[in-house]
């Protein structure tokens, strides 16, 4: 039993955007009030941390050093945590995570299945430290790597370590980070830049946001090390305006780092000077593409330019520029401190280390996970994710966002790494992972992602601007039941040509959702086109509503709600839908209390 009020306690409250959305701010305030009311200010510190990742069960509160992990904490239970746990040493049982399978209550974070298989490198400090307090970062070995690099290593040695670690870019393409640094270092030029790409924009993805919100210094430290390695004095973080909390915490972090001499002139008394500024993006997905990002920083329209030349040769203000994403930079300090061999011991042959995924969709445990490369999709979805919501059947998992593809059941045991995902017609992307169940229509899913790509296309090149639009129109035709078999051929050919012809990564990958669903779920396409049905019952235009006579009691409820009055029948007698005039709004289906209305 816990009884240690004499010892210093810390109550960690998740301050990630997810938990804040479930009012963790209020929980934080209440905890502070209670602690004060109980005169525990001296012994108990209430700290708002970054994201714990277990968003499904937020707001999360953790009491240290007792190592008790509370889920779904509200105001009342927050008060109870102080009154019971802190004061009396009694765990608040009802807010302890309960394994839905074993029904066992698990108070310890690392024993919860969601966390069991995680290895937290990029997220090492998220949920552990107060991101607005540099001392907490320093206490967790923060800026040690920078000190080590500046005092003990030549820039080439730093690059060598990053190369040997096998770290690849975590933003999408997976280009070896060390090679990128080396190319930038070798490019001629007295002025060079480091850019952190924090323009995370995949639907459902919040990996980078969580790192920025939870551990902003790790990114600053990674950037400073990169600056030293490539010979840059200035860094920029390009972060989208939709991430106000991340921006707020970054601003604090930058100012604290400057005060402490980790940024600015002559860092740690050496000749190395490096500073970081924020550039706030307007939230265009395309600005995650590095040349578009550079154009945007320069004040131009956010649209990509032809590569080569690569930013490592001709980048920001035409100077050699190294661009990595947030998660990549966050990995750098531990690699420096623990060595490249430690890092490369994790993962698969060609993909080293861990990857953060934003697990979302029809999975029980929605949230942020950091797992070693090589873990299977099954492990993530079933062990960490706790399986499919409502016990439904798994259909596919989408990785890589709008640039990725849908992977079906038969590939669930594929070890996740860059190359395996590419081989399946998907990609790592920045780490979005959306799980789909039997109620998801794969044609509709493809349409959803393509709509996103159409909206976010910069409009520069023909292939993406018009090609994607035409693909979307064909998909619309199919989901409206107007498709013909030859449309499928046109769609496939167009998709392949767009992949081959587009100017930038967005265009080149935007057909992936269509191509992968056509590859793995072709039957569903055929069903839409030939049989004019949507097997998952999603595509409204293809649905037909029926009344099952055996179940209908003639309550007339359906007839009353039908907006177009096509349901006929006498009270207490079986009703019939006149499908001729039915607009497939689904009101009757939702209204019937007897399960007498079905749709196919």
């Amino acid at each position: 039993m816990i009884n240690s009020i004499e010892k210093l306690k810390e109550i960690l409250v998740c301050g990630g955007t997810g938990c804040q959305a479930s009012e963790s701010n209020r929980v934080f305030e209440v905890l502070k009030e209670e602690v004060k009311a109980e005169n525990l200010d001296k012994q108990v510190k209430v700290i708002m941390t970054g994201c714990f990742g277990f968003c499904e069960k937020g707001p999360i509160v953790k009491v240290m050093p007792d190592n008790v992990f509370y889920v779904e904490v509200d105001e009342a239970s927050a008060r109870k945590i102080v009154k019971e746990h802190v004061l009396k040493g009694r765990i608040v049982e009802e807010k302890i995570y309960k394994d839905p399978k074993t029904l066992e209550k698990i108070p310890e974070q690392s024993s919860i299945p969601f966390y069991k298989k995680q290895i937290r490198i990029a997220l090492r400090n998220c949920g552990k430290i107060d991101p607005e307090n540099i001392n907490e970062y320093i206490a967790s070995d923060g800026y040690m790597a920078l000190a080590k690099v500046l005092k003990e290593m030549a820039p080439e040695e730093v690059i060598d370590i990053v190369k040997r670690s096998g770290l690849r870019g975590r933003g999408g393409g997976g280009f070896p980070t060390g090679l990128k640094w080396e190319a930038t270092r070798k490019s001629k030029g007295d002025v060079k830049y480091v850019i952190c790409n924090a323009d995370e924009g995949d639907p459902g993805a919040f990996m980078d946001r969580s790192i920025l919100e939870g551990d902003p210094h790790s990114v600053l430290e990674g950037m400073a090390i990169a600056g030293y390695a490539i010979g840059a004095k200035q860094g920029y973080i390009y972060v989208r305006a939709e991430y106000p909390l991340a921006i707020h915490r970054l601003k604090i972090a930058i100012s604290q780092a400057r005060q402490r001499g980790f940024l600015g002139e002559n860092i740690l008394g050496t000749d190395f000077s490096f500073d970081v500024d924020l550039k706030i993006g307007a939230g265009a997905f395309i600005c995650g593409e590095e040349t578009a990002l550079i154009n945007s920083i320069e004040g131009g329209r956010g649209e990509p330019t032809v590569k080569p030349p690569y930013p490592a040769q001709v980048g920001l203000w035409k100077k050699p520029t190294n661009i990595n994403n947030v998660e990549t930079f966050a990995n750098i300090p531990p690699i420096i401190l623990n060595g490249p061999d430690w890092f490369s011991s994790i993962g698969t042959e060609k993909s080293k280390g861990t990857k953060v995924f934003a697990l979302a969709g029809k999975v029980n445990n929605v949230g942020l996970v950091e797992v070693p490369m090589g873990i299977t999709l099954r492990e993530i979805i079933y062990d960490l994710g706790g399986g499919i919501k409502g016990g439904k059947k798994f259909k596919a998992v989408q990785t890589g966002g709008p640039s990725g593809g849908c992977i079906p059941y038969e590939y669930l045991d594929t070890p996740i790494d860059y190359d395996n995902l590419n081989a399946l017609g998907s990609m790592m992307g920045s780490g979005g992972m959306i799980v789909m169940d039997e109620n998801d229509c794969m044609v509709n899913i493809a349409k959803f992602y393509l709509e996103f790509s159409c909206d976010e296309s910069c409009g520069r090149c023909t292939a993406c601007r018009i090609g994607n639009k035409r693909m979307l129109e064909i998909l619309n035709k199919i989901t409206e039941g107007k498709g013909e078999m030859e449309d499928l051929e046109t769609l496939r050919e167009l998709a392949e040509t767009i992949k081959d012809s587009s100017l930038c990564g967005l265009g080149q990958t935007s057909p992936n959702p269509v191509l992968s669903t056509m590859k793995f779920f072709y039957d569903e396409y055929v069903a839409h086109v030939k049989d004019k049905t949507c097997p998952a019952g999603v595509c409204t235009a293809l649905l037909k509503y029926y009344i099952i006579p055996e179940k209908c009691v003639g309550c007339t409820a359906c007839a009353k709600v039908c907006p177009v009055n096509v349901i006929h029948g006498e009270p207490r007698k079986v009703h019939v839908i006149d499908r001729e005039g039915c607009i497939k709004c689904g009101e009757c289906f939702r209204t019937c209390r007897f399960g007498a209305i079905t749709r196919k």
Partner: protein
Amino acid sequence: MINITINDIKLQVPYGTTILDAAKMANIHIPTLCHLNLHDINMVNRTASCRVCLVEVEGRRNLAPACATECFEGMVVKTNTERAIRARRTMVELLLSDHPTDCLVCEKNGNCDLQRLAAELGIRKIRYEGEKSTYTKDSSSGALYRNPDKCIMCRRCETMCNEVQTCGIYSAVDRGFETVVAPAFNLPMIDTQCTFCGQCVSVCPTAALTEVSYVDKVWEALFDSEKYVIAQTAPAIRVALGEEFGLNPGDNVTGKMVAALRRLGFKKVFDTNFAADVTIVEEAKEFIDRLNGKGRLPILTSCCPSWVKFIEHQFPELLDIPSTCKSPHMMFGAIAKTYFAEKFNIDPEKIVVVSIMPCIAKKYEIQRKEFKHGNLQDVDYVITTREFARMIREAGLDFTKLPDEDFDNPLGESTGAAVIFGATGGVIEAALRTAYEWITGESLGNVEFNEVRGLKGFKEATVKIKDMDIKIGVANGLGNARKLLEDIRDGKRFYHAIEIMACPGGCINGGGQPYHHGNLDIVKARLEALYKLDKSKPLRKSHENPAVIQMYKEYIGEIGGEKAHKLLHTHYTKREKI
């Protein structure tokens, strides 16, 4: 040098050569659409946006745009594989699927790069159907017509406007399928700082940017028996018009041009060159006055309405330095409706002055309120060289078989000094010829000032007149003009006289000229032809034009005098930057 292989042909190319240029060296044609390289005026459009020039490069995952991909050592390129050809066709089909395809009634029918490409690739069917972009058309300026429905997003106009002309009117706006090139806030063109130089029109591959046409209005006037329709032709027309009828660039078709105008029904066919001579005597007088302390130096020529609008928007603090002379065709209009009308006893209300111009800005210029007097405006319609050619074709004239005819008198007479107005440096050269003689009282032996000739964007010369070293600056292209004016404003450079033409090369490359389709050798040929014409003239100094001398004697009186100022001079207005 780099060794590469294209379609199994091995060749060596200099470092930095694009696949497209390398293919040309190997006599391999790769179709292009958005690409445009006008290296003579430092304009390269390398947006690689149309994706038509895609080729296969060994070892590369996707297809490469030949126009924007530089060769590397050992590169192996295939331009005509199934994959490349299919992609290329698909791109053109996609462009066509979002295009009005109203080619039969399109302004650019026969002159459209997209149309040519569709023919070249043998497109017979557009496999993709769907929504087409529709945008508001803009003819607010009365000069430049924007039809964004026909925009293929090549961005040539943007490159031209932003990088060469530095006016910054166009940029891509919106996203995805809705992306279109437009002015800021989608403003009507008349409310922007656009100078209507029309260089965007010159490089637009389709009919997204054209001129506002007045052909129908001119026909209407010509068929109206109440009207007395007279034509004036700018110097640069006569060396370009022939191109529209299969003649060589630079062929001098003055005689046939006059004959054609007569056959179209113009009562009198006059020459803007006459007014150019008038401009020179007025401007030379003004220059000498300023040299003598009456007014500020440098004096800037004011023949180019696009350039005038540019300085009004961009350098309002310098509005006292341009010459107050109207542009030649505006002087002509004023003279036609006064001196000519009185002399031939014609009601000026009935006179319709039509200017045949290489220019789009002149369409805007005639609408300026300074040039309107009650119901009368100095010039009634401006049509471009292209529109004029269209009228000739419409009338069924076999242009090349027309006889050579002479201009009418008295407003048809001109000197060699006037004809070079059409080329950059020409106006200042003409002014020097007159100013020199007036200041020194001596006859100028060699009238040719070679330092101010040629297509170079900026030229300068020092001319010794009496004991003075007169410093001359010549800029063509508004970007070059901007740099020069910034230096003048900041006191970094000094000149006595400056000539500025908005269009790179001057009027020979005006926005209303026959399309050069990226071949500036055409412009060079026009330029040479003008100087040849000058050389062939018995009189080569404006102040020696007998018809001009007679007009001053009979009607205007003193050069730079009160009546001259009323008829031939103007003033400038500060305009907003937007």
